[in-house]
């Protein structure tokens, strides 16, 4: 008897080809976005956004409401990531031929830029914060609402007083002296944690000093003129001594980001290196001590304050495939230039923009002053625009830095970082 099975094979292959063709939005240049014009001439713009404790779905929906009211023909559909975050969700949507029109959070790099609309011809784009710095080959793909200051050290004023520290440290030597005093006074001097925090904090802390020693650090590494790990070795050696002396908790890797933040806000530690968005959490926290902030210290002999680590706050990009280009451009322009929309976003996530006055908490006021006093901004982490390191550098750096806590030497860590960069170059 003839088996019926072989007859199924062509059918299966047919289905496979059909489905691969249908589902492969990422493989075709077709304008396949699902967003489009609904009945009655109403345009729906789909915007994929990051959802965080500060930026909730309800916040985003409320944010775009005035825009929808002012533009009755445009309906904005705010979409939360279906994956772990926007970075995971966008490729999935592209592959499914279901890309949004606007994406928030990500910044254009050489990979993403190919899918994004060039906004260089938009007169308003070049005046948005860090737009020029984040440009790729002179083209603007990403525009943002404000700036996040990265190289900030928040400190517990009461702990500093009790330890007899009368002024915030300006150099690493002064920082170490302060940590010694804090330790002696019974405090955990520097709060860190596991997750992505370990590597992030070390980059944030060293930005101002490193930027003075290597002003084009990202570009030089990208061009193969400089080794990332090797150039950071002195900082790694210094950090190792902090672990050895107990200036950071040797069990810090067992803390999540939120745990570390809570520990500092509940007075368990004296200093916490973090970006300006921490001010949003600080303003909501109930505590019986005051928190101050100072710019990250620099090496002896360097200018203080040094260049401030800076990233774009709430970056937006428009996908090239959007069938609603005009509506999407209009929306993004409104999000990054409308005074009320800008103020709302800055306040919601603790971000800053020169020239935009909003209601500041005392800590936010200090951060604004630090930003104003910084001689320049310096890319943080993987960087942005032409100063972008290979994708995944931040995570690889973090993994290697954590090695210092589990027995690796600073030299081994530096070599691990360089091996990773070499493998991705």
């Amino acid at each position, binding site marked *: *008897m003839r088996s*019926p099975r072989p*007859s*199924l094979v062509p*059918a*299966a292959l047919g*289905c*496979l080809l059909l*489905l*691969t063709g249908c589902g492969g939005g*990422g*493989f*075709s*240049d077709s304008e396949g976005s699902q967003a489009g014009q609904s009945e009655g001439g109403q345009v729906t713009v789909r915007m994929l956004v990051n959802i965080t404790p500060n930026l909730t779905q309800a916040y985003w929906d409320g944010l775009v409401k005035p825009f929808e009211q002012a533009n009755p023909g445009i309906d904005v559909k705010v979409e939360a990531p279906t*994956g*772990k975050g926007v*970075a*995971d969700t*966008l*490729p999935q949507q*592209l*592959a499914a031929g279901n890309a949004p029109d606007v994406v928030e959070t990500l910044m254009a790099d050489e*990979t*993403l830029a*190919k*899918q994004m609309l060039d906004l260089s011809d938009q007169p308003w784009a070049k005046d948005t914060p860090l737009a020029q710095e984040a440009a790729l080959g002179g083209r603007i793909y990403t525009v943002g609402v404000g700036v996040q200051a990265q190289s900030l050290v928040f400190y517990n004023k009461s702990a500093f007083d009790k330890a007899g520290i009368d002024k915030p440290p300006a150099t690493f030597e002064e920082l170490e002296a302060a940590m010694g005093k804090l330790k002696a006074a019974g405090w955990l001097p520097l709060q860190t944690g*596991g*997750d*992505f925090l370990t590597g992030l904090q070390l980059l944030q802390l060293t930005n101002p000093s490193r930027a003075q020693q290597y002003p084009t650090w990202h570009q030089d590494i990208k061009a193969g003129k400089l080794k990332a790990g090797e150039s950071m070795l002195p900082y790694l050696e210094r950090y190792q001594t902090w672990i050895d002396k107990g200036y950071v*908790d*040797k*069990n*810090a*890797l*067992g*803390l*999540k980001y939120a*745990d570390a933040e*809570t*520990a500092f806000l509940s007075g*368990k530690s004296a200093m916490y290196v973090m970006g300006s968005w921490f001010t949003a959490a600080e303003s909501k926290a109930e505590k019986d001590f005051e928190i101050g902030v100072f710019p990250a210290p620099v090496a002896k002999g360097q200018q203080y304050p040094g260049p401030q680590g800076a990233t774009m706050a709430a970056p937006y990009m428009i996908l090239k495939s959007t069938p609603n280009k005009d509506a999407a451009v209009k929306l993004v322009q409104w999000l990054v230039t409308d005074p009320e929309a800008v103020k709302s976003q800055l306040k919601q996530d603790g971000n800053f923009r020169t020239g935009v006055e909003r209601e500041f908490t005392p800590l936010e006021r200090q951060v604004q002053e630090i930003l104003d006093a910084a001689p320049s901004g310096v890319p943080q982490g993987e960087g942005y625009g032409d100063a972008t390191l290979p*994708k*995944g550098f931040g*995570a690889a750096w973090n*993994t*290697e830095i*954590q*090695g210092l*806590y*589990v027995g*690796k030497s600073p030299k081994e860590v530096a070599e691990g970082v360089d091996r990773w960069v070499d493998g991705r170059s």
Partner: protein
Amino acid sequence: MTLTREAPPVVTKPPGPPKRRPRDGWANAIMVAPATVLYVVMLIVPVALALYLSLTDWDGFSANPAFVGAANYVDLLDDPELRRAALVTLLVAVAGTAGLNLLGLGFAVLVNGASRANTFFRIVLFYPHVLSALVVGFLWSAILGTNGAVNNLVTRWGGEVLPFLSDPTWATITMIAVLVWAGFGVNVVLYLAGLQAVPHSLVEAARIDGATRWQVFRNVTLPALGPSVTVNIVLSLVTLLKTYDLVVSLTAGGPAGQTQTVAYLILWNSFHDARLGFGSAQSVLLMLVTGALAFVVTKLRRRGELAVHQ
């Protein structure tokens, strides 16, 4: 004399297979079609796509991924992260399978009888499996983290912080323990089903022959549970080889990447590092290894079961 001839026996042709009418073929095809379409869409297409992508340099965004042949597979051989993750995954799979099955069988024996208390305990034992692995991870990190409930108690009593999640060895053991805690309820249920299928007459006969409880369990119950053991081991092994969500929520692959599993690395490489081609090659490798291991374990178990029966 009259010769009588016996009539030759009537030879009737044995009934052959009923003649297939064309209409039957169509009916069969229509009935099989939904299952076939589901199978193709849910299994064949993703596997074929993964295979195809593994031969490209797709970053997840570009319109035209370049065909790179076996380059991704060559890179796999030289990837220290994958080697480390493979070792962690193997350790998790082997130790976890042992833990899941020992606990599963042990508790199944304990709650095997029909009573209200046993029903209650069965629900309690199965409950962790109902929780999302992400919830389980966050829950246990709140209990075992450096500032977690356990360490708060330990330090309050004057002890040193226990590095459940901050030391590589401790973190790996913690992860396996939590995986076992979250998963052994399923094994209990499967073993219970097996235990209830053990012929009561065999147990009765052994008892009449004077066998102790342990002897009954060792020589009657356990051999009769052979197929259940095979199913449990294979299911546990395959599930643990794909461990991902608990890593995300409990250790985030740390400390220092020491608890990254292969599945975690695949997702990380694919989406975070935008190397979907490379991630697909890792997935294909994981699929082959999982399939091979499941096949070997099933074969070995079947051989063992046959030996017992003989």
